[in-house]
């Protein structure tokens, strides 16, 4: 079955831009993990996202839709990227989630993906 591994980090650690070693190290670590996942034959997708300050939110409330500057939730840690993997159980997904590199503190949320709609 498929799981999404959603990565939450305080993206202030990348404040120094893409020339900074913190940025280069994390990109390299993700590249290596992607290779390991490909080798295990489990990777189905995934992307890194641009900084949370680039986010725009469309909010629907009481039939009204409004557009907001910024991410959906104003929290210290923001969604920064995700992997989609196909493994047999949560325990395997946890094993892969533990391997996801983080520049500082953060969290990886594991969510089972809805299968194809059945009749």
């Amino acid at each position, binding site marked *: *079955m498929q*799981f999404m591994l959603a990565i939450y980090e305080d993206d202030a650690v990348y404040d120094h831009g893409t020339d900074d070693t913190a940025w280069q190290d994390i990109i390299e670590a993700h590249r290596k993990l992607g290779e390991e996942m490909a080798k295990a034959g489990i990777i189905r997708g995934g992307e890194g996202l641009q900084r949370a300050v680039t986010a725009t939110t469309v909010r629907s409330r009481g039939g009204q839709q409004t557009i907001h500057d910024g991410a959906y939730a104003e929290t210290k840690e923001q969604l920064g990227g995700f992997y989609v993997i196909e493994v*047999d*159980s*949560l*325990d395997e*997904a*946890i094993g892969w989630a533990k391997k996801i590199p983080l520049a500082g503190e953060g969290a990886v949320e*594991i969510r*089972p993906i809805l299968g194809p709609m*059945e*009749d």
Partner: protein
Amino acid sequence: MDAAAQAIEATWRTHRFALVSALAARFRDLDLAEEALADAVAAAGEAWKDAVPERPEAWLYRTAQRKCLDRLRRHATANRKAEAVSLDRELHADPGADALPEARLGLFFHCAHPALAPGAQTALMLYHVAGLSTARIARAFLTHEATIQQRLKRARDKLKANAVSFEPPRCEDWPARLPPILSAVEIVYDQSYGDIGGGVEAEALGRDALQLAWTLASLLPQEAEVLALNAMLQLCESRRPARTRADGRLIPLSRQDPHHWDRKSLARAAKFMSAAADTLATSVLPAGAYTIRARIHATHGASIASGRPMHAELVDLHDALMAVAPSPVMAINRALALADRDGPRAGIAALEAVEADRDLSGFAPWHLARAELHQRLGEHGPARLHLTAARQLVPGTLERAFIGEKIALLEG
């Protein structure tokens, strides 16, 4: 009760957990396993009227597997139907399919999966492993049956949505996966032991917890921490007859009469202690909190029974425990051990240090410890202050009465 009903009851009592585990593992669905087993038991009521089968548990297993398949075939999704067809073929082709496989350890790990909250882990374990009714679990945790049913359903739904395995994890994952099982068993026991006025019901829950721990030890006879948990619980259980006076009021451990401690539990505890010591070298999990806590309980007991103070040993054990499993309760106990060795002032200083670390003003054990030490120094004012604070924080009427009595003694 007729012969069929008696046989069903006996088989249920002995094999229910093994049957549910095997069915859940085979069909990878705990709900389905429980439902199909209930179907099979209902069918046995009719089928066993003329003669009880030679191996009743095998009969139940075979029948429950067919009931699982019936339910799967009726299941709406195409996937599950296809699965039923292939399992059906397997069941027909495999003549050993009614031999009950050993899958109990996997269900322990499944129910105490770390992806679940502790409350959900204990509820699942009591319901599926110990076989308690939702009504009894609700009474044990002082909540409504509907709440427990909802908690069980939500937990099972989550485990199913995440395809959580029914197989025991690999040994290298045990350090993360075994402790939640042990603490779930301990929570069940605490719930029983903490409810002093709970009577027969609380005592029965205590036995259920001991049985859970015992079953786990029979499945993991090489794990020191599992054996140590058993030793610790048996030591607690041995104090049960000695800890209340005839009028139901509480007697603290230090003032209990060792002659009232239950001998059978003490003997079991001793056996588990030595088995735990023997397996230390070969355990997957290293000696940890339960090994040390069992030693603390045993040392306390030995100290009281022999009349020989063992203050230094107890401080060392508490220091070791703080190193592997620091918690406010352990820190308070360590402060009390320190007070025994170095005097009440040292204990109070240690308690203040604990409080400086985190706010414990809403924590009854902290106030009780403070009160105890001030009382030893003859400082009745501060003692009364902390006892009054504690009385407002404890949940049980007996515990409140016990504290009230202490306050009255101070004033008298």
